[in-house]
């Protein structure tokens, strides 16, 4: 019963905050709304008997990731307005239509595939949390799934190498990309036969006859 009460308090808050996040004009407001969503979800996890997810949700999402978000927003400038102009005509309506279609499809598939239960299948704490949520999770993570756990470290190494590669420049590497080389203004064309790429100062015009790389002539 207390679970149900908590749910009806938390669910509206998280949904309202999620809408607020998407609709807010100011990026910082969006980020703050997202934190509200994260927190209400975290409490919901706690109510469902998953203290580990509760802690992770707050430390990792509300903590680390949100700080990163705000950092990037501040770095780019708080009052920067995102252009809402559509670049491909009718894209917004198509996206809405296809998104709703996907939602309907997945909902129907879930309904048909496993059914939607109106009452709990059993006591979660007995079925899944053998004694203790954190311990049960550790049992799964470090026993049956220990290999994926280890392999994730390789993935993290690759990400770290990538950051180093792009952050550390040696003497003589020059600055970052030379913006002056980019074609002015217009967004880059998405894709078309013989699509053009920006003029490349190193390779254009080297072989005498060559024009811009890849440009249809």
């Amino acid at each position, binding site marked *: 019963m207390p679970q149900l009460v908590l749910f009806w308090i938390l669910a509206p808050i998280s949904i309202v905050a999620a809408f607020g996040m998407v609709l807010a004009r100011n990026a910082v407001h969006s980020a703050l709304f997202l934190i509200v969503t994260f927190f209400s979800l975290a409490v919901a996890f706690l109510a469902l008997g998953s203290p580990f997810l509760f802690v992770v949700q707050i430390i990792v999402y509300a903590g680390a990731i949100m700080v990163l978000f705000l950092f990037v927003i501040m770095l780019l400038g708080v009052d920067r307005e995102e252009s809402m102009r559509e670049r491909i005509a009718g894209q917004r309506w198509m996206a809405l239509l296809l998104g709703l279609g996907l939602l309907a499809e997945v909902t129907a598939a*879930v309904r048909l*595939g496993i059914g939607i239960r109106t009452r709990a299948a059993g006591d979660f704490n007995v079925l899944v949390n053998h004694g203790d949520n954190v311990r049960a999770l550790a049992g799964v993570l470090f026993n049956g799934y220990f290999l994926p756990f280890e392999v994730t470290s*390789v993935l993290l190494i690759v990400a770290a*190498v*990538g950051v180093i590669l792009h952050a550390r420049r040696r003497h003589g590497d020059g600055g970052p990309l030379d913006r002056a080389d980019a074609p002015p203004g217009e967004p880059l064309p998405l894709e078309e*036969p013989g699509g053009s790429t920006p003029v*490349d100062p*190193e390779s254009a015009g080297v072989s005498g006859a060559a024009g811009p790389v890849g440009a249809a002539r």
Partner: protein
Amino acid sequence: MIPAATLPHPPLVFGPLSPELVLVGAGLLVMLIDALRPGNTGRFLASLTFAGIVAAGIAAALLWNWHGPTLVLGGMIAADRYSVFFRLVILVVAAIAVVLSQHYLERSGEYRGEYYALLLFATAGMTLITASADLIMVFLALEILSLSLYLMTGFSFRRLASAEAAMKYFLLGAFSSAFFLFGLALAYGATGTTNLAGIATRLLFTLAPTQPRGVLLPSPALALVAAAFLGIGFAFKVSVVPFHMWTPDAYQGAPTPVTAFMSAGTKVAAFAAFLRVYTVAFGPLTNDWRPILVVLAALTMVVGSVLAIAQRDVKRMLAYSSVAHAGFILTAVAAGTAEGVRDAMFYLAVYAVTIVAAFGIVMLVSVRGERNLSLDDYRGLARRSPFLGGGLAVLLLSMAGIPPTSGFVAKVAVFSAAVRAGFWPLVLVAVLASVVAAFFYLRLIVVMYMREPEVAAAPAGETVLTRLAVGLPVAATVLLGVLPGVLFDVLAHPSVLPLGGFGFGL
């Protein structure tokens, strides 16, 4: 505290993972040496990388006669010949890519020690995915290889085209990963397991409730949606229309040796996982996914071939041709038979060797960096350099599917698999697409052989190693065209099929 003894863990059989352990170990060693000896020239690290790949190749070859358990490390890794076959193909591609990269980076002055580490990690991801027997492993391996390739694509970050290619590849790739992850979650929701064989077992119970007791599901609808989402993830990686948008930009903008590596490696690795997931996990649903793949295959062949005609840039043309080839391979996959899997394996091996050498020759014609990439720059190439011109001509004939090259045998094989499965309209489309595709391959050959060169000098700078790196694949292309039995005999063995596939009798 619970005592350690009460925590059971799966037996630690690391044997079937030895190629990946060698590759990742070599990658870490490369990073360490690069950090400790900042002034190194790159030749040493390239040799070390090459040695690591050869060692991984030996480790993989030894696994061919693996006698231990077939599923190890908690059911995550399959120790079957299917994975050994694909690992060897990928390692051959990687070895060629190392030689090409060393040449390219030294001449363009873009060498950084991280490059070889990324190459090794990407290779490890590619080989790991071929052996993954669990959707979570497939996802992790896919991410390792993708992340490494995003970075390698943008490696020449001072060149705007390279950065743009990396950006597009990254954004669309991340998008496809999200689809894959969604599919993974739905597959788990539908069947309660992420293990490929386990999913198949649960689906069998659902489809045939008279089977021995299992967990009955009301309908396979959720599993079908899961299969579709996972398929979207794979379709992105192997560039199947309409998920091919990134391919031409990424292939064109990436440094040419990276293009060579990823065009061959990603396609082989992603198709290996695609085949395994669809024939093993979703094997019971074969009749449901077949028609979808038939449509995608037809669309891919036609769009890839037609758009390639319009290209004046050789790298972009080969990119569209690789889209078309994904369609040809999909033709065999769509057959949904053991024969189709074998023929797809043959096609992938042949195609990987061909495309890596073709981009290698494009790189040698460029001489330094990204130059001489338009069709006009290939005028009279055969006269200026009979080796490069002749080699590229053989490779193009193979891609066009003209005898006596291996590409011809591969095409015949995939077409016959589709015909035997009853998909002759698809094969009709495929043959027509081949004819269209032959046009742009032959156009390049005509330009190379029958047009007067504008400059008389041959592209300079070939070394013995680069000649070997593109010469051996050319020789293999002809050899496999004349004696395809060498490879088909290997593939004829029943144990070469993915573990647990085709055991459903549906």
